[in-house]
């Protein structure tokens, strides 16, 4: 048993729902009790969808368990097929139904229905949402394409040359409840079109089973979200010989590498380097003098694998930040995130416990947190600016405006989304500096709200700079801060104050200081170089 107060991912059948709801003409019959229908609100509320997810729940009750739940499954299947007339049917079970072992998939196969049926086995007690989405997408593609497989899987990704047409690619992985997928697809389509590459199909988002049947008509596959599409891409490569791209086009550098990889896979001449960089404003904005204050900003990153890895690279290479922590809740992506962390000289945090993540943030004393909606809440509590870069997300992370993460425009969006909270962070600092000036109007509130502002009021340094800091081991004798030392500490910007306090105390302990005054603080600062 695992004690969970909050979970980053839902159960695997919610992943299956994401695939069904993303597509057209697919219906999902889910053997599940009535409470499981809550999952509809993820789509209608968070994604603000104007249609119900295409899911029929069998909603069996305790009194059905003594009788024939298998009949119940069959009647719901035939009713769903009659009513919704899907082109493909997914059949599966949620955690409770898994225990009663009705095997709804086999039941569906035995009903003589004239449509493709995918029987989903998603172990609810060991797997989670993204795995469920990935498995569902893979099973659906496999079911639809397995009969079309030929003995030889000869596939020529450069066939477009002889056929005298534009090269064609599939965009695989975008789904509902993914992060900004709706706009990423448009941006990548636009990006590829600029290089005379056509999009054959985009799936699962917006695709029908017929579109999946057409996947082999593309020259290569573009794996946009490995969490969802890597297993499908691997299967298509192994069975149809279609190669797939591995670079994720989030950030200016990554978009460039992505284009190079695509060109290479398609046998095209490499894209003109000089033309590429100018396509995004991020590069110039980051170089502009105004961005000087971004240098070395301490940033903590947590999210799904794809977005965390991309964020770390952008933070370091394109914005000149210092990555002080990186992690993911995704076990499937743990290896990749660990490898990235190693490049940054860090140890990755692989955890599904948001309190552990919050503790890691507190310890790393970052000036900016890039995370999921949960890290936004943690950061708010800690008074640290934050931008959301990954699911799980809140309704406010599904903006009305066009705001992709991928491609050139995605890089622009990222610059704004990450830097604006920091501007506000700087503003907080200025408010602190000027709050004693007579012109200052009291009651000014920044986005951090009451709590954030309270923690770094400068007129109450004694209490406040000791708030929200990790407790030091009580066996250690902590040097005493003199009033003068405290006053000096209070002058340090709030977002690094915790770090400075701990370093100074560490230094004082090492050097045998019993009390800390401003000199000790400056000595420590010189010693640690921060």
């Amino acid at each position, binding site marked *: 048993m695992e004690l969970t107060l909050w979970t980053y991912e839902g159960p695997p059948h919610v992943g299956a729902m994401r695939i069904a709801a993303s597509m057209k003409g697919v219906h999902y019959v889910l053997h599940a009790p*009535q409470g499981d229908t809550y999952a509809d609100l993820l789509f*209608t509320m968070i994604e603000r969808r104007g249609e119900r997810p295409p899911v029929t729940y069998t909603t069996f009750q305790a009194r059905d368990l003594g009788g024939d739940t298998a009949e119940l499954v069959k009647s719901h299947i035939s009713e769903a097929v009659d009513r919704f007339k899907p082109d493909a049917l997914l059949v599966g079970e949620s955690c*409770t139904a898994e225990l009663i072992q009705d095997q709804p998939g086999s039941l569906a196969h035995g009903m003589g229905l004239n449509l493709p049926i995918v029987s989903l086995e998603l172990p609810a007690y060991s797997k989670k949402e993204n795995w469920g989405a990935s498995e569902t997408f893979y099973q659906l593609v496999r079911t639809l394409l397995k009969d079309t497989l030929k003995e030889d899987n000869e596939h020529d990704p450069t066939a477009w040359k002889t056929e005298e047409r534009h090269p064609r690619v599939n965009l695989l992985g975008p789904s509902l409840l993914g992060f900004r997928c709706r706009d990423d697809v448009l941006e990548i389509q636009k990006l590829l079109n600029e290089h005379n590459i056509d999009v054959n199909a985009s799936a699962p988002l917006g695709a029908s089973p017929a579109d999946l049947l057409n996947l082999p008509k593309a020259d290569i596959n573009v794996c946009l979200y490995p969490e969802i599409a890597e297993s499908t891409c691997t299967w298509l490569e192994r069975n149809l010989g279609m190669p797939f791209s591995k670079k994720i086009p989030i950030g200016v550098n990554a978009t460039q590498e992505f284009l190079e990889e695509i060109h290479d896979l398609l046998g095209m001449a490499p894209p003109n380097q000089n033309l590429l960089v100018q396509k995004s404003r991020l590069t110039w904005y980051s170089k502009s003098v105004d961005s000087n204050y971004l240098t070395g900003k301490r940033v903590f990153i947590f999210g799904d694998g794809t977005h965390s890895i991309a964020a770390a690279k952008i933070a370091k290479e394109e914005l000149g930040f210092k990555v002080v922590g990186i992690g993911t809740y995704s076990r499937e992506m743990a290896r990749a995130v660990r490898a990235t962390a190693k490049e940054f000289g860090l140890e990755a945090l692989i955890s599904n416990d948001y309190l552990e993540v919050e503790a890691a943030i507190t310890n790393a004393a970052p000036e900016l947190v890039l995370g999921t909606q949960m890290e936004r809440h943690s950061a708010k509590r800690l008074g640290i600016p934050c931008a959301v870069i990954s699911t799980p997300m809140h309704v406010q992370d599904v903006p009305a405006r066009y705001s992709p993460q991928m491609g050139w425009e995605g890089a622009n969006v990222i610059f704004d989304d990450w830097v604006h909270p920091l501007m506000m962070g700087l503003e907080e600092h200025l408010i602190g500096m000027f709050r004693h000036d007579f012109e200052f109007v009291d009651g000014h509130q920044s986005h951090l709200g009451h709590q954030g502002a309270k923690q770094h009021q400068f007129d109450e340094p004694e209490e406040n700079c000791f708030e929200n800091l990790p407790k030091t081991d009580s066996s250690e004798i902590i040097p005493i801060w003199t009033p003068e030392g405290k006053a000096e500490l209070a002058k340090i910007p709030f977002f690094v104050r915790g770090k400075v306090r701990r370093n100074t105390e560490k230094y004082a302990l090492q050097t045998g200081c019993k009390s800390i005054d401003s000199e000790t603080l400056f000595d420590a600062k010189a010693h640690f170089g921060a």
Partner: protein
Amino acid sequence: MGGSTLLKESGPREVFCGLTSIVWLHRRMPDAFFLVVGSRTCAHLIQSAAGVMIFAEPRFGTAILEEKDLAGLADAHEELDRVVKDLLRRRPEIRTLFLVGSCPSEVIKLDLGRVAERLNELLRGKVQVLNYSGSGIETTFTQGEDGALKALVPLMPITKSDQLLLVGTLANAVEDRLISLFNRLGIERVVSLPPRQSTELPAVGPGTKVLLAQPYLTDTARALKDKGAQILQAPFPLGIEGSRLWMEAAAKAFNINATLVSSTLDPLILRAHKAIEPFRTQLEGKRIFLLPESQIEIPLARFLHRECGMELIEVGVPYLNREMMQPELDLLPKGTRIMEGQHVENQLDRVREKQPDLVVCGMGLANPLEAEGISTKWSIELVFSPIHGIDQASDLAELFSRPLHRKALLNQNQLANA
């Protein structure tokens, strides 16, 4: 009167399970913790329904069953002991721990009663451990509260003195107001279940008269009756009329002089009628369809029809307790369609066919109906909002008039899409 048409249907349902009531129960008793013994689905459900991110550490959690728990490789009792110890170490302020059964724990027949018993021995009174089921195979939405309250009944001390016991979670401000009104009527001793601290349970006994503040507390009412309490029959305190009849039922049971009752309540009723009038004007003649979810659909329908002049197309309820609902059913117009149970597809077909002005439904259905041009009201909002009592009647009416007002406003100001 009282000639409602009682219908039943079955099929796919779209309702929450009993776990959802933890969302308001944990707020009512801040010293209690609700530990669901279930799956990741349970954890995901509660956090999705509650939007829990605002809490640093919420007062509810899930002990998620894993493969090894099911395969019998781990002893479920030992595992729960470990999880509970871990939890109590982290949260020493917890005084009452509810172990909440779920669909998976019911199906694998995990005996949470026995677990609670053993934990109580282990913890020796430091923390009271209780259990109930919020599983979706046995309970819907608000029934979870019934289970939790019923679990508290055996712990209630015995009293012989006369008192009024209000049962069902009310917003604190509303509860204070109702108690002060009962005091004005001369009912001195008014207590509540659930209490505001789990350790401050009210007493119960032969002198106790019970008013149910919520219509979904069947099992709790029965348990209180077994303790000698008298359950007062009345409509529920929604709207002016319902609240008045509800309070009058108590007054009558305590032999309060009718003149005192009317001199106390009449001015409030007069004021409430004035307050409700602008909303009544907007709602009058409008047609409403209530989908089953919270179990307060019938009292709401009674209020919306009799005090706001709305036409009732269909009133859905997850289940119908005839005895408890009789005072409400008596007030409904002849021929009101009461639909017990659900076939969500067929019911939505009827919604589309009837084109009501307003539909009361769950969060999963609201936006899809809005997208079809049908205004909606979330039923979950009605279990969170302070809507009980005479003074809240206009607020309750406002909740229903707002979507209509908004639709009119947008239609007036936006260029027609067509």
